[in-house]
């Protein structure tokens, strides 16, 4: 079992003929993902690597191939439009890898997705991966192992780090998902925790947060009320200076809210095992699994 994607997932890649799109389309195919279609306006009727049919529009791709998840690599200036296209085309999930999308474009895109009942992972994220079944995005496949721990993170490479630590300890993952660090995105910690808590294939959850916003605080409140499974966490940015922009647009601390210390305190207060050492995310989860936290 898993959340969001599995071996039956049929993926359409928007921007499949671009640099990043084509490289990662091949990586996804190599991982065993069912990439059933690509979309590049003007290249409809051709094939990607002689195997994946390319369409001019997402709705045509969905109609002809039954794709149910779209993975988007379209450049930032055109990405808001690409998300809107996917929202109306009949897929149930869009995974947006593109970084640098203007915030106002994302606000408009998210409104449309909500109206259509379509979920989004991202933007500016590594995507979602169910080990051994399906990879939608850019995460290095080889670090993952099939298993029963869910991973949700606002960061890309830090997700790989956590997954790597789990795999090295022999702890496999049910589904790993990077939700992205932008101010306005799709699935958040609470959504992911809801799905992992309901998933019969997930026994525990690793949550990786960072400074800025209040998503971790809301996750803590949700864990306290609704999550019975053990949760381990790391919050990046304890050493970050206030008010500075640390790469992610979302990672801004201003004033008293959004600080790592407040997030850690909230999570600990909810019974989450929080480590201060990013090299000990795996062992922290391991200990939480053994102890079951008495929850």
């Amino acid at each position, binding site marked *: 079992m898993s959340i969001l994607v599995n071996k039956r997932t049929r993926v359409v890649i928007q921007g499949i003929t671009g640099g990043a799109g084509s490289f990662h389309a091949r990586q996804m195919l190599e991982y065993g993902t069912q990439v059933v279609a690509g979309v590049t306006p003007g290249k409809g009727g051709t094939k990607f690597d002689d195997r994946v049919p390319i369409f001019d529009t997402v709705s045509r791709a969905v109609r002809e191939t039954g794709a149910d998840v779209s993975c988007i690599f379209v450049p930032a200036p055109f990405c808001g439009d690409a998300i809107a296209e996917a929202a109306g085309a009949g897929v149930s999930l869009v995974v947006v890898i593109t970084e640098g999308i203007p915030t106002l474009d994302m606000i408009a895109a998210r409104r449309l997705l909500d109206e259509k009942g379509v979920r989004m992972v991202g933007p500016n994220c590594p995507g979602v991966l169910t080990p051994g079944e399906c990879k939608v995005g850019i995460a290095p496949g080889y670090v993952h192992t099939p298993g029963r721990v869910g991973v949700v993170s606002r960061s890309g490479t830090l997700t790989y780090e956590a997954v790597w630590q789990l795999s090295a300890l022999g702890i496999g993952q049910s589904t790993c998902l990077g939700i992205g660090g932008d101010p306005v995105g799709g699935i958040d910690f609470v959504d992911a925790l809801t799905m992992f808590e309901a998933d019969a294939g997930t026994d525990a959850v690793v949550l990786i947060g960072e400074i800025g*916003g209040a998503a971790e605080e809301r996750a803590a409140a949700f864990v306290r009320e609704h999550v019975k499974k053990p949760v381990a966490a790391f919050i990046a940015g304890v050493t*970050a200076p206030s008010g500075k922009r640390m790469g*992610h647009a979302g990672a801004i601390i201003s004033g008293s809210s959004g600080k790592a210390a407040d997030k850690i305190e909230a999570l600990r207060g909810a019974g989450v095992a929080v480590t201060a050492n990013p090299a000990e995310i795996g062992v922290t989860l391991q200990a939480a699994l053994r102890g079951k936290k008495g929850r």
Partner: protein
Amino acid sequence: MKLHEHQGKELFRKAGVPVPLGRVAFNVDEAEAAARALIAETGVETVVVKAQIHAGGRGKGGGVKVVQGAAAAREAAQRILGMNLVTHQTGSEGKVVRRLLVEQGLRVAKELYAGIVVDRDRRRVVMMVSSEGGMEIEEVARRTPEKILSRAIDPAYGLRGFEARELAFGLGLGEPTAGKLARVLGALYKVFVAEDCSLVEINPFVVLESGDVVALDAKVTLDDNAAYRHKEHPTLADPSEEDPAEAAARAAGFSYIRMHGDIGCMVNGAGLAMATMDILKHHGGEPANFLDVGGGASKDQVAQAFKVILSDPAVKAIFVNIFGGILKCDVLAEGVIAAVREAGLKVPLVVRLEGTNVARGRQLLGESGLAIQVAKDMDEGAKKAVALAGDTEP
């Protein structure tokens, strides 16, 4: 990107948001001339001389003076220009004042607050107003949250007339002021959208004795992600407000922030870069910088980034922590080797490599003949770097 007050007000003025008459001055002569011109235009002797820095709290720090006459304006300019202004937003090091805004004095009856922000939780642009202008809005939110009215705006319709009126009349203002304020709030929302702002704040937003409303301040932050569709935005940048190394990094396509420690860091990904600083601190070290080389970095970009670290005299050891995803480990290795060949390496270098093309990356570093300490994971790498920088005993 943050704008200066005078730049924000220029955007407001063009959009029909009333602002005081004013001129920018870069030296005392310009300040005096600006005051003289304003006095001639308005017939009022009162002028305000305001320090222009990218931080709030300027008044309390002595960066704003209300004076009578052009000679007094010159004197105020003399005092403020070049001063190191320390406010609650600048940090203890403060900021040097390099430009002034000289404005007409106005007869203020009431101070309000207006702000437009992106609310991440509601995923909407939110407009806020308050009758408690002139105070820190965070303080108002803490003490009297009921005095802040807000409205989440549907992007499909924008701020509608009735929504603006609900906010304006909600402040207890009578006509004609409430109606005027509602119209100005509409114009303000249009500026926010048209210019791709991520923050617009006016504190105070004043009601004059005449009943007119005027934006007495302007704090505007632009969304850097939207810069591609605003050709004029780059011209609004003030390089003197930035650390030169940070500005150069951004121009070269990576993200760098100077810190106060002695261990240089090069990492891919913002989250892992922050975590790398955290783990150094956890083991008793102090990071010299935050550096995210980014996902799609080329060999040249890696080399450029590494040279930025090498050029920091405070750096006593370097920790390269890479988990290759899009960034391939061999590209990273080539970049580091190229930078060291060109600029030399005078401090210990610890490298931890994992991820895409890791074997090739390690091989390249091994064959390079450089004195590199290889770490098997980030914990070992961080401990080695801390020990080599002399922050703790090895």
